[in-house]
């Protein structure tokens, strides 16, 4: 069940990404290291969605009042800091107020969860993987429904239609899973004029019938295009026409570093979103 739900969201995100790719790719434009600009803009969109959603779905007046109450209780604690009994009572009241304040989030969270989930699924496509760079390799994995089906696909072959993308290995049939793998390599850079183009790989069945076309994204060496092409959406999964059931492309992970520390893209997005929310709460007159 869980797998089905995940697959549904993956499909939905890929579907949305296909439509929104030109728009979202624009948010990734920028100088060297433009993916930081991209994630900052992505965080801005998410922050706007959250702030506007909060404003529309929550009781803003009550939120403000509860925040004021928490502030007053802090002051009370400070003033009566030498009175332990008073302090304990204040802490109790503060806990109650905080819980009440959190309960005010339930409705907006319920309203916003679906659009947030969709937006995060969409961002995942842009922020988790990156296109192949010249010299790099990746694995293409054909996934079959069963071992029998994979065994039947013994004559299956993968070919490249472009000289700068090489299929380096023969098909590798996994002895433990219903999958067949190939390794491909971006042997040379894409020419700048083709910086945003895809290189289609063709998967043929034993009888020569084309089973799938697999678009592989390769970054160009041109500095001007790299920041754009490096950040375009890389579809990790492609549905085949016949067997195999699907094809997965193992693109390299996009790396997010800050002060030599590696972070998950969700952490980066979360921190930036919070930053934007604090910056925009006054202009948008939203309390949270």
């Amino acid at each position, binding site marked *: 069940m869980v797998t089905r739900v995940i697959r549904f969201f993956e499909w939905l995100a890929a579907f949305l990404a296909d439509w929104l790719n030109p728009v979202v790719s624009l948010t990734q434009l920028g100088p060297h290291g433009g993916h930081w600009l991209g994630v900052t803009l992505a965080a801005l969109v998410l922050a706007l969605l959250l702030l506007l959603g909060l404003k529309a779905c929550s009781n803003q007046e009550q939120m403000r009042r509860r925040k004021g109450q928490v502030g007053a209780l802090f002051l009370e604690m400070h003033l009566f800091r030498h009175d332990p009994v008073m302090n304990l009572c204040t802490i109790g009241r503060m806990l109650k107020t905080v819980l009440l304040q959190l309960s005010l989030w339930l409705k907006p969270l319920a309203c916003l969860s679906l659009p947030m989930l969709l937006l995060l699924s969409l961002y995942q496509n842009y922020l988790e993987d990156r296109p192949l760079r010249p010299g790099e*390799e990746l694995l293409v994995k054909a996934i079959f429904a069963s071992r029998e089906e994979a065994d039947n696909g013994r004559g299956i072959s993968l070919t490249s239609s472009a000289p700068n993308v090489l299929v380096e*290995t023969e098909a590798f049939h996994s*002895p*433990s899973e219903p999958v067949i793998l190939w390794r491909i390599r971006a042997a040379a850079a894409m020419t700048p004029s083709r910086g945003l183009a895809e290189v289609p790989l063709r998967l043929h069945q034993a009888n020569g019938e084309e089973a799938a076309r697999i678009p592989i994204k390769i970054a160009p060496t041109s500095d001007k295009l790299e920041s754009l092409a490096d950040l375009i959406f890389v579809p990790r999964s492609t549905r085949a026409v016949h067997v195999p059931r699907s094809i997965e492309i193992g693109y390299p992970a996009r790396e997010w*570093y800050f002060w030599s520390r590696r972070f998950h893209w969700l952490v980066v997005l979360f921190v930036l979103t919070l930053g934007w929310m604090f910056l925009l709460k006054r202009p948008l007159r939203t309390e949270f």
Partner: protein
Amino acid sequence: MQTPSSAELPRRRFCLHAAKTGVAASVLGFPSLSNARARPRTNKIIVLGVDGMDPTLTENFMRAGLLPNCSRLAKQGTFARLGTSDPPQSPVAWSNFIAGTNPGGHGIFDFIARDSATLQPHLSTTKTSAGSRQLALGNYRIPLQTADTELLRQGPVLWDLLEDAGVESTVFRAPVNFPPSKTTSARTLSGITTPDVKGGYGEFTLFTESPFRSQGTVPGGHIERITLRRGQCETYLTGPENPFDARISHASIPVKIEVNRKRTMARVQLPARELLLKEGEWSSWVQVSFHLLPAVASVSGICRFYLKQTSPHLELYVSPVNIDPKDPAMPISSPGSYARELADQVGYFYTQGMPEDTSALSAGVFDDAEFRQQATFVLHERLKFFDHEVNRYENGFFYFYFSSLDLNSHALWRSLDSEHPMHSQAVAKDHGDFLPWIYRQIDQAIGIAIDMAGDDGTVLALSDHGFSSFRRQFNLNSWLLDHGYAAAKNPLDREEAAMFANTRWNGTRAYGLGINSLYVNLRGREPEGVVNPGDDYENLRAELQERLQSIRDPKTGGRVVHRVYRREDIYSGPYVEQAPDLIIGYDKHHRASWGTILGEYPVEHLLDNEDPWSGDHCMDATFLPGVLLSNRKLRLRDPQLTDLPVSILAACGIPAPGEMIGRDAFA
């Protein structure tokens, strides 16, 4: 080269600069003095540190026309033999270059030193102290103190002196510079002596099905026996020690291997990466993460996989897990971002100090061709980084280190020496061209450096020592034992015990530790010292000097030890007291055996060296001068390594500090 912005300078150092230049100039009214210090005489100095470049081979190759750029330098400026350190070991020699002192001034005397309180051997260049305080929570241990790694090299630092005087410095793979100084404002990347993530000089792993290999640890590596069932197996790649979990000693990551023998391919599945390798193929760098404490602490590393064979038995080699330059578990560069910047711009690279895997060759995991393939990759990687760094060089001090000649000469000297026990026609035929090829590659790098320096810049290409054949090995501790200078707890079991486990200290007067070091078991210094300071100590040293120098090799009839030096005769400076009591200068083609270095007592005193590690330089320094090539004319007739930092400082108009003992070598 980019000018480092003030933001890149450590805050304290920046304030210091500001104070020196601003306050001195404005308040004290000495603007000319302040400016003179900041304005160097020349600001283009490129130094190529070519570890192990031998002057005789260089001369021969130059004569044969193989090294046009070296010949160009020799014609235009200088080609000379460069006096090396005593002993001529790389950490010692490069420390001489960095500090401008002999070992008495920087405290590095051998690859291996000992803790005089416990007599336990340790690497001479770094000391790691684990935090002793920890909080136990069930099976988990939370350290309350962080482990600290300290660089033991003392004395002045050439690039710090240059930076202080306003000369920007970039030092790529600085030898004996791990961990890099936290206060330096130079850009440095640590070189030789940088460990892998396990903390050693590099430990490979071999996954093998072969019944002819035994599971366990071999010098510089680990062999892991695996059994394939239905063409697959699941195993683990061992990582660093895990101080957080009481149940396991080392962190590890799961590795699943699937094999297709018919197609001679294997699939390697790691937690975050999957590889498909054909037989005889190397993977690119793979980033791996060892979790020490779930969601709290992990160590990131990088390694390469090599599918040696799929049949009749699967053998998969994994390189030592190097420190990840993008997420270093230990500091390897200054500033910390420099290593990541390099990895981002050029790609992952070997961060371990000695990347050519000679251990795999010695253990029989690599054959000569495989070793050569791996060593070629290392050299190409270095040249790629040289190209990158030299292309952004504009001015200042630029040092670039090449390890290839040293480690490949160690491993393949037998291809050139027909008298070496490991020489064969096949080795000479198949690999006799490899060392000359590396010399040619280095020569091309020298050519690029000459072009970058232009007419007004200074180019130096230097090696820390030369090379000689290592044909015979000498078991110093066995000789001491059999001549009554040492005593064993169990004289019948001499082969097994290492690290002086078989030594009866109260009957031992002298012991050899490290490659060229001999210590007296001195009362008051060693925990169970038996030799009294004063006359007893001096008499013992004199006796050992005489007897060691008189040893003859029964096979060759020649001497084994050329000369034995007393420390005060060759060292000066504040650290002389930490030096070994005697320094052994082995005769040509002889060296300390591997066993004796760490306190073993094999039965034989002298034996053939039947290890592929066939070239060496840990002999008497007089046999092994390095190379000095420069576009500037030499003034001295006998230049020494210690002269070069003084000369570089002089070229920039900076006075050398009093601790430096060298002279300005150039006219």
